[in-house]
């Protein structure tokens, strides 16, 4: 019995009057939507992923794309997606994998929070005229500092400070491994991090030698698969991050399919060509908070206590208590990844149904650490669905020291969030290892775009702070009084510790 085909997801049409048959669409589409037959461009819309590569390259704006050209009978419960997933699983009996972040229409808390600005009293500050202090130090801060004064009256710091990361802007680029993304994409990001005075994450995939010149602006990751990890790798990074979980798929491991393990990826990860790179769900040397503390210390001991160590966890129900546990280890920062965070591939049910939004998680963590008097013991880094400088400012007001962005930096490289990262055919040269596609990114140009994005957000953050009468990022951090809830429920307002608009 045949279930037949499901309707087209996208329909591509060419305005034949406009088309000059330059064939750019044919050349650019790596999914095979276009072909030439008898001097005519033939379209196979079923192969389209809405990546927009053809549209962006068409010199005549001759291509149009329509989403869901075929209607289903509308139904509020049995959405198109619900129906098509059932059909898919009835055919295969397998777990559905999907790309990019959470695609369920959950309310976005950021969009229900508004920032404050000064009027009349406490005048706003013009960042053009006044210095705005955005410099951020990530790592442990001493609970008190002691000084000594010598005979000449010179003052020296007596307290031994823990190494911190120094950021020019409270914005870093999160961990996307070489393997998940291409070398040119990672190189663009690394160059941008250096240019912008910030840091980028290597992800769990080792460090390709092309990244070495930017290693002082990298945070090396150690995850459960321990790919590409040796003492040289640990010493290269400005900081080390232990990845326990990821917002897009809390509680499960990672899995780089063998198809993506090409020669260079295999060499960087230090695994055989074409073999699956499997990161188990837990770290098998971490079965408890004490074991985590042991791994933190082990990494510090191996690098002679010179590197800050971060611990990244997915935002899950007990995130605040877990973060408090991490703060009591020797970890220098806790990274909280919300459930809107991106991914190359994740089981759809995890991506869409497990975890919680970063806004609530970061507020809960900040509050818990403050309540326990240990907020100075760790920095808090928020990530997972941060789309603009407004989200950045709100994250900091909710208690983050800095944020990681991932998807936004990829969009700066061309990504249109089509969600087909797992297929390895990314026409933008981002989530692919196919040489001709990877070559579509020029790391010089790519890094400029990513650095522009960071600069734009940084300028906007200064403006937002100035408007609120704040001239230093510390005055915004955890400052819930500069946030108001616009139509959030009381329970959530309690978690976020914000008042309603008008209150």
């Amino acid at each position, binding site marked *: 019995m045949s279930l037949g085909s499901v309707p087209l997801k996208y329909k591509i049409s060419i305005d034949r009057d406009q088309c000059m048959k330059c064939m750019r669409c044919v050349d650019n589409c790596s999914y095979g939507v276009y072909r030439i037959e008898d001097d005519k461009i033939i379209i196979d819309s079923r192969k389209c992923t809405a990546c927009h590569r053809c549209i962006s390259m068409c010199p005549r704006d001759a291509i149009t794309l329509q989403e869901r050209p075929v209607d289903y009978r509308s139904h509020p419960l049995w959405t198109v997606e619900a129906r098509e997933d059932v059909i*898919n*699983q009835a*055919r*295969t009996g*397998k*777990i*559905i*994998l*999907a*790309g990019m972040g959470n695609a369920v229409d959950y309310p976005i808390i950021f969009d229900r929070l508004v920032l404050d600005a000064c009027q009349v009293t406490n005048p706003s500050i013009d960042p053009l005229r006044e210095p705005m202090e955005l410099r951020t130090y990530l790592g442990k801060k001493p609970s008190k500092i002691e000084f000594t004064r010598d005979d000449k009256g010179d003052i020296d710091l007596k307290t031994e400070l823990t190494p911190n990361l120094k950021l020019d802007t409270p914005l870093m680029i999160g961990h996307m491994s070489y393997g998940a993304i291409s070398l040119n994409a990672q190189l663009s990001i690394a160059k941008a991090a250096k240019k912008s005075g910030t840091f980028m994450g290597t992800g769990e995939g080792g460090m390709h030698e092309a990244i070495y010149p930017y290693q002082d602006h990298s945070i090396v990751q150690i995850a*459960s*698969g*321990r*790919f590409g*990890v*040796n*003492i040289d790798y*640990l010493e290269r990074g400005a900081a080390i991050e232990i990845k326990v979980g990821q917002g897009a798929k809390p509680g499960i491991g990672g*899995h780089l*399919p*063998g198809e993506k393990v090409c020669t260079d990826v*295999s*060499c960087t990860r*230090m*695994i*055989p060509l*074409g*073999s*699956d790179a*499997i990161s*188990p769900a837990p770290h*098998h*040397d971490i079965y408890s908070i004490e*074991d985590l503390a*042991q*791994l933190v*210390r*082990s990494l510090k*001991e*191996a*690098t*002679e*206590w010179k590197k800050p160590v971060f611990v990244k966890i997915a935002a899950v129900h007990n995130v605040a208590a877990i973060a408090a546990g991490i703060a009591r280890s020797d970890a220098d920062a806790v990274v909280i990844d919300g459930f809107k965070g991106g991914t190359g591939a994740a*089981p*759809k049910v995890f991506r869409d149904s497990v975890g919680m939004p970063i806004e609530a998680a970061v507020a809960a963590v900040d509050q818990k650490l403050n309540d326990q008097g240990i907020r100075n013991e760790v920095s808090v880094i928020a990530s997972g669905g941060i789309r603009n400088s407004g989200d950045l400012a709100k994250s900091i007001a909710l208690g983050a020291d800095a944020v990681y962005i991932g998807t936004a930096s990829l969009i700066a490289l061309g990504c249109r969030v089509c*969600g087909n990262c*797992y*297929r390895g055919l990314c026409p933008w040269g981002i989530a692919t290892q196919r040489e001709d596609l990877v070559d579509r990114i020029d790391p010089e140009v790519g890094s400029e775009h990513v650095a522009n994005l960071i600069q734009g957000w940084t300028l906007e953050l200064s403006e937002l702070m100035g408007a609120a009468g704040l001239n230093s990022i510390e005055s915004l951090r955890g400052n819930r009084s500069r946030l108001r809830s616009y139509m959030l429920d009381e329970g959530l307002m309690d978690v976020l510790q914000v008042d309603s608009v008008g209150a």
Partner: protein
Amino acid sequence: MEPLVIDAKGMHYTPLNKKIRSAVALGVKEIVINNVRGQRFIANGLRGHDVKITINGVPGGDLCMFMSGPECVVYGNTDHASGNTMDSGTLVIHGSGGDAVAHSMRGGKVFVRDNIGYRGGIHMKQYGLKRPILAVGGTSHSFLGEYMAGGIVLVLGIGREVSVQDRGIGSGIHGGEIVIRGDVDEKLLGVGAKKVDFTEEDLERLSPVIKEFCEKFDIDPTPFLDTNYSRIVPASSRPFAGKYTWE
């Protein structure tokens, strides 16, 4: 150069490691550490291809983690995850190892005279010429060679009728091999592992490992060079490939 002798009694692991590191930096080739009582992270991330460290006592967890080059000989038992993510070099344990011995080991050799705990050799991996070896004289608890992606795990089961009796051997294995003296009950194999014939060529290939192991502990290798082994390998190099469908 005279060996450096360190009395570790009451010493915290950080000053201990500092001493080891600075000695190696000064060119010391042999270090003897006495009275080791649970200090973790000994020789962590230590480099040095002709350095030998002798540990008398019972070191704590993550012994020789990330170690690259040295030979470390322990006269005593070891705790959790000795040889964790070790890069190269040798770890010889005159006693038993704890859980997760040789976790994610990338290269080098770990020899354990007696037994190991759970998850020994978990996620060991290999690349190019780097092929880690975990050789155990006694037996192992469950999940031996779990998620193994490369390298060799050898269990000799010395003095035992059955070398390994715990379950979950090689669950999720997708590279490398587990070799156990005598027969292994099929029902002890984990998901994704399969038992294949141990051939003459396999014995020839593993003979140097067996001989080296026996040499370390002054054991006559003859009986182990003329006996049957079970060889456990991945059923597939892509154990999870069939589990998923795309959106």
